[in-house]
């Protein structure tokens, strides 16, 4: 615009050239302002859509086998929150991520949370058969998994009520991460 400005300055205030120069300058500034305001409006509209209506989903990476610190850093760098739990050490070294929810490849909204379960240091837990036999299988399985055992369920025909636990093995002091067999009654029908 340097071509117009001197014209506006040199020309007398009321002259035709002066008015035309100022008019062109004003027109260009107005056009520039309109374009900038339109661009900002467009970006804000599109940004709101991207953020609130249909956000770009974050692809959850596979963090199984990584250390807890590594996994947390990777997830946080992607803008994902981390909830940490402890699980059976079976198949993983203590301190490594043994399980994650949601699994790798899932799409999460930015700021969504991923639950990672860290393989616990194995300790021996006292498993008493009398504590589990006769209880609902779901309760027993959940309890044993919470202790960090790998639970294997077998179903047998039995006079015991259907879906109740009839046997648990091994018993006594069992190392976390070891398999525990739970035998469940399927009744006498089949």
């Amino acid at each position, binding site marked *: 615009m340097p071509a117009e400005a001197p014209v506006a300055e040199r020309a007398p205030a009321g002259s035709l050239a002066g008015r035309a120069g100022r008019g062109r*300058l004003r027109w260009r500034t107005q056009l*520039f302002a309109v374009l900038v*305001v339109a661009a*900002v409006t467009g*970006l804000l509209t599109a940004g709101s859509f991207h953020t609130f209506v249909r956000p770009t989903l974050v692809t959850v990476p596979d963090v199984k086998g990584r250390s807890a610190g590594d996994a947390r850093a990777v997830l946080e760098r992607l803008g994902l929150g981390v909830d940490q739990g402890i699980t059976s050490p079976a198949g993983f070294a203590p301190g490594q991520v043994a399980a994650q929810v949601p699994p790798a490849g899932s799409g999460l909204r930015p700021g969504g949370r991923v639950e990672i379960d860290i393989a616990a240091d194995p300790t021996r837990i006292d498993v008493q058969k009398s504590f589990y036999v006769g209880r609902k299988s779901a309760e027993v399985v959940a309890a044993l998994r919470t202790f960090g055992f790998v639970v294997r369920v077998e179903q047998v025909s039995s006079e015991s009520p259907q879906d109740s636990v009839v046997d648990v093995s091994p018993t006594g002091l069992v190392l976390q991460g070891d398999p525990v067999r739970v035998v469940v009654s399927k009744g006498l029908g089949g």
Partner: protein
Amino acid sequence: MTDNDVATPTVAWPARVGRVAVFLLILAASVLVFLDLEWFRSVEAMAATPLVGLFVPGGAATEFATQTVFLFGDGANPTVGFVVSGGCSVGVLVALLLLAASAMALLSRFSPVRVLWAVLAAVCVSFLANVIRTTAIAVIGGRLGREGAFFFVHNVGGAVFIVVMATVSVVVFFNLLLAVRRSAASA
């Protein structure tokens, strides 16, 4: 409507009320931006999402939990994370511009509508410039790493660009504010 219908005392009041209303509006906007710069930053980051992809509000999900940060990236590659800190915002510049413009609204020389339009355009110039700068930093940081080109764009080029664009926004503001109507000039 004839010329006789326009009585001078009744015209003055709406104009004065309009000026005060625009003054209060712009002043309130300035105060709001000053009080909540984080919110303004989040709006800036949100506006950049169509250009860089991902927007993560707040520090809740990051290791920088004590400060508000925003991460840009494609959502799949962890190395494209980018943090927008307080220094990356033009919130303070915009708030100062609004504060100065609010005083202009009280001057009878300028129409309140023109003041509003001028300040809106000026704010948009600064805002857009910062979105472009932030986007450039995010893209270069993501593609080339956090040294070299990123350092230059972030610490030198971006800073100069913002200073220049802040000046442009002030020029635009006064240009629009002082623009003389053709009809008024010819009268």
